């Protein structure tokens, strides 16, 4: 390679599939950052040959050919059971279920709850961007009170539509000994990668269910510029959704 080519080579995780890059997420979308941290976590754990990656419907489905990992794209909300089925059949596989907030907290909520209850030895990663991105920005279970979306044009009214789902808090309260539960943010990638690595390691160790919610961005549907986007992630969302570890195996205290 020439100096120029070396200088231009993007810094991609080894387990990414370079042939499907640049990826198809919107400019400013947080999925790319979350998937980069996931890629680095997989590289650092050296498990590219052991992972089966499952992705949901919605924007997360754009990751169906994202990695050089055996991958399966499923139906809306059904990635957790598909990965569970794989893991139960072949326990040596490291199963990662990647989904959005709709897939995990609405249409697939029963699967998240019951996988956590059964302490399935899989890793679920959920992107929280406070709306349904792929369908054009409707209210999600995670939409903030007062936030305007296509189905809450005057702002989300908690009286009518309830409050945003606190996923990791819910999972932590039902998951048992051995589970790992955390919430990270694209605003702190080093910490996010640490959480993702722990969530995968926890599966490798055979401890139990692992769940990481990632606070992410959706400037396309939020209709925000870069500054407003970061402000929404770092201030508005962070006020409601708290970053941290909610359950760590072997650790008595919870957050």
């Amino acid at each position, binding site marked *: 390679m020439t100096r120029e080519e070396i200088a231009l080579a993007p810094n991609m995780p080894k*387990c990414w*599939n370079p042939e499907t890059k640049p990826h198809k997420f919107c400019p400013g979308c947080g999925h790319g950052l979350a998937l980069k941290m996931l890629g680095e976590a997989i590289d650092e754990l050296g498990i*590219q*040959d052991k992972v*089966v990656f499952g992705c949901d*419907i919605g924007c997360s*489905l754009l990751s*169906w*050919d994202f*990695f*050089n*990992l*055996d*991958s*399966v*794209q*499923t*139906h809306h909300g*059904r990635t957790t*059971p*598909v*990965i*569970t*089925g*794989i*893991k*139960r*059949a*072949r326990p040596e*596989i490291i199963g990662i279920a990647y989904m959005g907030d709709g897939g995990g907290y609405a249409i697939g909520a*029963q*699967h998240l*709850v*019951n996988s956590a209850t059964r302490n399935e030895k899989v890793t679920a990663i959920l992107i929280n961007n406070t709306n349904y991105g792929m369908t054009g920005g409707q209210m999600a279970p995670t939409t903030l009170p007062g936030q305007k979306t296509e189905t809450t044009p005057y702002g989300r009214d908690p009286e009518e539509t309830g409050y945003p789902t606190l996923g990791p808090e819910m999972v932590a309260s039902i998951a048992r000994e051995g589970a790992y539960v955390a919430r990270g943010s694209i605003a702190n990638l080093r910490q996010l990668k640490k959480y993702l690595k722990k969530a995968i390691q926890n599966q490798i160790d055979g401890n139990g269910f692992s769940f990481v919610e990632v606070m992410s961005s959706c400037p396309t549907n939020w209709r925000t510029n870069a500054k407003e986007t970061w402000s929404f992630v770092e201030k508005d969302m962070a006020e409601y959704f708290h970053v941290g570890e909610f359950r760590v195996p072997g650790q008595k205290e919870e957050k």
Partner: protein
Amino acid sequence: MSEKPVKGERRVFMTGNEVCAWAALAAEADIMYGYPITPQTDIMQYWTRLGPKFGRKFLQTEDEISAGFTTVGGVIAGKRAFSATTGPGNTLFQEPMSMAEMMRIPTVVIIPQRGGPSTATVIYSQQEVTMTTFGGNGEGFRIVYSTAGHQDLYDYTIKAFNTAWKYRFPTFVLGDGYQAKMREPLTIYDPAERGIKMVETEPLVGLPGTPGVDRPAQYLRNTYNTEEELYDVVMDIAKDYEKAAPEIIEWQDFDTDTEMDVLILAHGVVSRSAQGALPLLKDEGIRAGHFRPITLRPMPEEQMRRAAAKAKRILVVESAYGQFLKLVKQSLYGMDKPIDTLLRPGVGVTAEEIVDRIKEGR
């Protein structure tokens, strides 16, 4: 390697659900995923008692949607995975089964039909024909065996695994609550001793080697960017399905070699009433024959038409309000044959009722 669950041949007296569990064991099924619903539940009850003795696994899921999708997961991991459901559970199964249809995932599901619509009765019906053959948002690229009794349940449960894995279409064993709960004598056997070789399974994900290094990554998807891309995939599946259909279809016919006053068309357990009606009709001086499709999907259309051509009239009998009738009409399209019906949604049909219906005429 654990020892074989069924050795040699054995005459037994069992319920249909017990038969299905033994058949799945004999067929070397690795894992069952399921959610309890009557009248199917005993299949998993027998499986959970017998399975562990032979190293087989089980997962009780949170609902039938999950049962279907975990079954899909087990199959793509390369295991001979199956499930069983019925009624409203079958309704929920349509989502995972449409995925299996499109992604060519060889799932096996046993369905002892119960009454409908909706929750209805837990006893008996033939009202899941439309849903099992053509359910989901798809084209019905499925294989459906309609069983008439316990020997069928054993034979076709074993066969379902081989058909599914050979042709890569979701395959169903469609029984009913009577067959599920009733006891009948039958012969259970080790498939190998009858020369039945189980088709090898293979993983679609979790292959050996590092993806992107030693081999390309496996990308299983059910999402397409353009209508034309989808069109090509569906047309390829249609071509495969139509090519396989003549090898898959199965049927039985009774007294259809000669001219008939009436040809009785019935499937599943109702076929036995039709068979029982034939000697009674003969005594009445009525020349009757019976054609029973064993596969409802794909349908043995030519064979049915050949039998129908020799009859003056057709009588369609089923424990549903015209679901099988619809498939018959589709198969006999263009033939100038009057069709009479005996439609008994959710209840059984006796041989005498069939005789009475024929004597009563149009």
